[in-house]
């Protein structure tokens, strides 16, 4: 369990430096975010005249323009749809596989486990060229759903890693009782295992949520139809080279960041647990 580290030997100077560094860093983090948000409320040319101050006139023009035109509602919907679907499938497939691996003691299952978690170290982008061909042949080119199998494949190694360990830790007694009552493995899975591994499922979901939502690469190479783009890809669509409206871009950036940022601020503990899942063996 967590320890209490006593560093009284630091002294006040040491503590002072600690606070100084942490505060400086916090400024370094908050400042760009601040710049992004306040400038999204300025008129286009005002930003050039005064990039840091609060807007003299709070203009919602950019937000209105973004939300009305350019199909941004569509981009958001697409991102949410694909993220939720991907996470659902990752958790479903991952937990089923983990349950089997955890409970099925054999050389084959151990081998499959090692095989599937090896993928953690493999960046899926490396296979982009064959993936392009495959997605094309499956008729999914330019479709939002081209991303689905990719994200699921991406998420399975960690899901299997984390969930298997977690399921292994479920005391035998809990399932034993059910078995004695004549339950089949499938029922055990639904009624007991799924409930017990919820914290781990949350970790896996969060671990995959951020890279899926923020992914640029695959939408960039698969999708060009406006109606199928995700939010992050939509952001680059606005980076048109000629005549870019800074205020509008920043409104877009702010809107694109808001979902995950808000989610994070609301659930920061789970986020941290989720993102370090599977890395440090407790």
């Amino acid at each position: 369990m967590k320890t209490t580290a006593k560093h009284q030997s630091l002294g006040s100077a040491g503590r002072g430096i600690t606070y100084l560094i942490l505060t400086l860093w916090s400024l370094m983090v908050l400042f760009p975010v601040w710049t992004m948000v306040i400038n999204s409320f300025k008129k286009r040319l005002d930003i050039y005249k005064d990039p840091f101050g609060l807007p003299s006139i709070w203009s919602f023009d950019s937000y209105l323009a973004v939300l009305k035109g350019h199909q941004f509602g569509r981009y958001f919907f697409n991102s949410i749809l694909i993220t939720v679907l991907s996470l659902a499938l990752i958790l479903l497939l991952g937990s089923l596989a983990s349950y089997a691996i955890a409970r099925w003691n054999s050389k084959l299952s151990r081998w499959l486990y090692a095989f599937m978690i090896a993928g953690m170290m493999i960046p899926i982008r490396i296979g982009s060229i064959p993936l392009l061909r495959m997605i094309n042949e499956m008729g999914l080119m330019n479709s939002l759903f081209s991303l689905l199998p990719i994200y699921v494949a991406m998420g399975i190694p960690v899901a299997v890693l984390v969930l298997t360990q977690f399921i292994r830790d479920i005391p035998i007694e809990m399932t034993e009782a059910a078995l004695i009552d004549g339950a089949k493995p499938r029922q055990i899975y639904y009624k007991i295992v799924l409930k017990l591994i919820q914290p781990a499922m949350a970790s896996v979901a969060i671990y995959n949520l951020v890279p899926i939502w923020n992914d640029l690469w695959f939408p960039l190479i698969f999708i060009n139809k406006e109606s199928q783009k995700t939010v992050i890809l939509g952001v680059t669509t606005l980076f048109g080279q000629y005549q870019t409206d800074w205020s509008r871009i920043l409104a877009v950036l702010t809107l694109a960041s808001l979902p995950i940022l808000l989610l994070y601020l609301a659930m920061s503990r789970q986020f941290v647990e989720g993102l370090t899942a599977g890395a440090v063996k407790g």
Partner: protein
Amino acid sequence: MKKGFLSLWILLVMITIGTFFSCSKENDEAAAEKKNEVEKVALRMGSWRMDDVAQMEAVLAEFTKTHPGIEILFQPTNPPDYNATLRLQLESGTGPDIMYARSYATGIQLFEDGYLSDLSSLSGLDTTYSEGNQAPWMTKDGKNFAIPFTAVSHGVFYNKDIFKELGLSIPESWSDFLSVCKTIKAAGYIPVANSLGDEWDINEVVFMNLAPNFIGGREGRLAYDEGKTPFNDKKVVALFQAMASLAPYLPEGFEALTYNDSNALFATGQAAMYFDGSWTLGTFSDVDFDWGVFAPPAPDGQKVHYICFHPDAGMAINSSTKYPEEAKIFLEWLGSPEGAQVLAENLPMGMFPMSNIAVEIEDPHAKEFLSLNDGRQLDVRWAWPELLGGDPSGYNLMMEGSIGVITGRITPKQAADNLQEGLAKWYPPAQKW
């Protein structure tokens, strides 16, 4: 357990089917509609003009008014990504039905790979468009792969108020131009707003803007392109030298400023001059000073002056479109008097129509830009007709040369030599030297 499994597989199958449905929904809908009374089809138009969405949608809406069964959706892509993106789409069969076509090699390549329809037999082609205008979108053996759509011009935007304040007049020769820059800089303004952050800017809009004046326009260019002169002769060196001499007059930190920053510097009155193309005319419509455009200066003592008037976009049809007839109707409409009028009224400012039909240009600045053509000869951007392909492409060599001499990393002579040596690696006329 088998049942749990079954539901899982059913779920997966459903998702897969759902996928296919969502992909082909558009076509099914269109096909279903076709069976009804009013044939309503929706075509997609690809383009790199992200900024023209409003204008193009107006044009396309006018078209649909007179052709109620055909709707065209304008779906542009980011300019630097357009070529690569278009290719990916065409290869995977998901390309747009109609698309903007880049002139010369880029477009020819697409046609030769079979992605564009042959438009040589489009009705009214030869009467609507002059041969010179058709040329950028024709293959070597005379097939049209796109119809001319818009051309752009290049010049130097200038802040009339600053010029008046400093008592300056429009420079005609290059040394006049440099002394104007000096005066402006001494007065505390930025002489030239251009920057290197978006590399294509210095290449397409400064180097190739000045090139016709320095290399002798069309004839001069042909001499190089056909191998009659090497690419590193003294005229080219002089051109790179001219580029290098701009360096002290660019904004502070120009190496990292972007195209938009340069626009903003001019638009906020901090910079007095700005090399750019006619497509930017619209950006400056709401600035608070008086401005105009002048033609790029020529080497001292040169009698004939040139303007870089460049055929920018053609309109092509996807060879595997499901609506070839409708697409053809649209293209023919573009060349008709009604279409030309709609274009003249709605085309973004600074994009000039290329049909023979005389139309009245309303905007005074656009008129001014076009009037620069009077008394001057025209030519296209140097790299476009012959030097785009190949590795290293003439485009990249010119770009790297421009950036290199402005930042002082290489001398103008070295830049010219690099151009010649690089082209000689693959371009037969250059290999003669």
